[in-house]
């Protein structure tokens, strides 16, 4: 079947769609976008607000505490939240400027894959690096509070070592599981779909 023949069938098949009126189109402009960039923005906003609320809560808590491991741990956590706040604000500025739909389909897919991948990488790195770091920081502050000798003496006990290893394993397992569940819930298989579309273009 030649292309011309297909074109003639296509022309006869002008689908009967319900035309939209000008008012309906005008109302559409006030609607909310469901694009992946909007979804990314929404998630970043949610995380930014969550980080700020946690920081304020921790600040209040830290101010009520007398000097000790919990206080220093809270302060270090607030500092980390501050760093995350800066990252989130930078991300939002970047996403607001991001308009890949103007590009051709291939460039748009490349751009989206890069953005979603870097977003997912950021999370995975955060979860795999930050949790062990915080676990160690917790131990360090506990050590400082108890005094090095008493801390190491306690740490050398097989029961404590076993308990800490089990706790670290559980902590890591749960956080990784939670991160993977969250990311899957947010983006599902969308990244895979984008990659397969790009490989289809490369054909």
């Amino acid at each position, binding site marked *: *079947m*030649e*292309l011309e023949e*297909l*074109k003639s*069938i*296509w022309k*006869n*098949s*002008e*689908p*009967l*769609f319900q*035309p*939209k009126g*000008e008012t309906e*189109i*005008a109302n*559409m*402009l006030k*609607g909310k*976008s*469901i*694009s*992946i960039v909007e*979804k990314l923005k929404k998630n970043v906003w949610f995380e930014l607000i969550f980080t700020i609320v946690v920081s304020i809560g921790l600040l209040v808590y830290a101010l009520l505490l007398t000097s000790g491991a919990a206080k220093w741990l809270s302060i270090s956590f607030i500092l980390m939240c501050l760093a995350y706040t800066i990252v989130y604000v930078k991300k939002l500025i970047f996403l607001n400027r991001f*308009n*890949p*739909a*103007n*590009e*051709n*389909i*291939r*460039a*748009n*897919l490349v751009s*989206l894959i890069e953005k979603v991948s870097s977003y997912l990488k950021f999370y995975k790195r955060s979860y795999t690096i930050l949790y062990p770091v915080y676990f160690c920081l917790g131990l360090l502050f506990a050590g400082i509070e108890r005094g090095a000798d008493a801390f190491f003496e306690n740490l050398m006990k097989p029961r404590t070592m076993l308990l800490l290893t089990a706790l670290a394993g559980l902590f890591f397992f749960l956080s990784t599981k939670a991160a993977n569940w969250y990311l899957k819930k947010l983006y599902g*298989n*969308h990244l895979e*779909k*984008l990659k397969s*579309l790009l490989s*289809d*273009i490369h*054909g």
Partner: protein
Amino acid sequence: MVIEEEKKFISLINEHQGLIHKVCIMYENDPDVRNDLFQEIVLQLWKSFSSFRGEAKITTWMYRIALNTAISGFRKQTRHVKTEDLKELHMNISDAWAEDREEDIQRLHFAIRQLSEIERAMIMMALEEVPYEEIAETIGITQNNVRVRMNRIREKLKKLMSN
């Protein structure tokens, strides 16, 4: 100024809404999801409207944004079209479409829905008489590549339509 811009945009969409409807029909079976996709395309066009300087044809610009939105959109996974969907499509269009070519039309739509999303974009533009140069520009591949791919798509359609 903004109101003027909005009016201009709405009249443009009104004039070319057939193009958006066709993209939506190519990519969505479900009427509600199709409606959402229509709105999303309009929103993306509006977002890019201020940066459109008329260097490309208005329809080329619209195809690019509409197809980008439909292809990379964050929607429910499009299910493969089944015979029941075909019947549904047939029911919707049978009143308006020429009786004698109805079967060919049905088979063409059914066959197009079996193609990959990129192939669908290419064949749709080709059937709409968009020149290969513009198809290449919209997809982001060379004109030679478009020619090769179009031959393959035509073969696929031929097979699908004869089954």
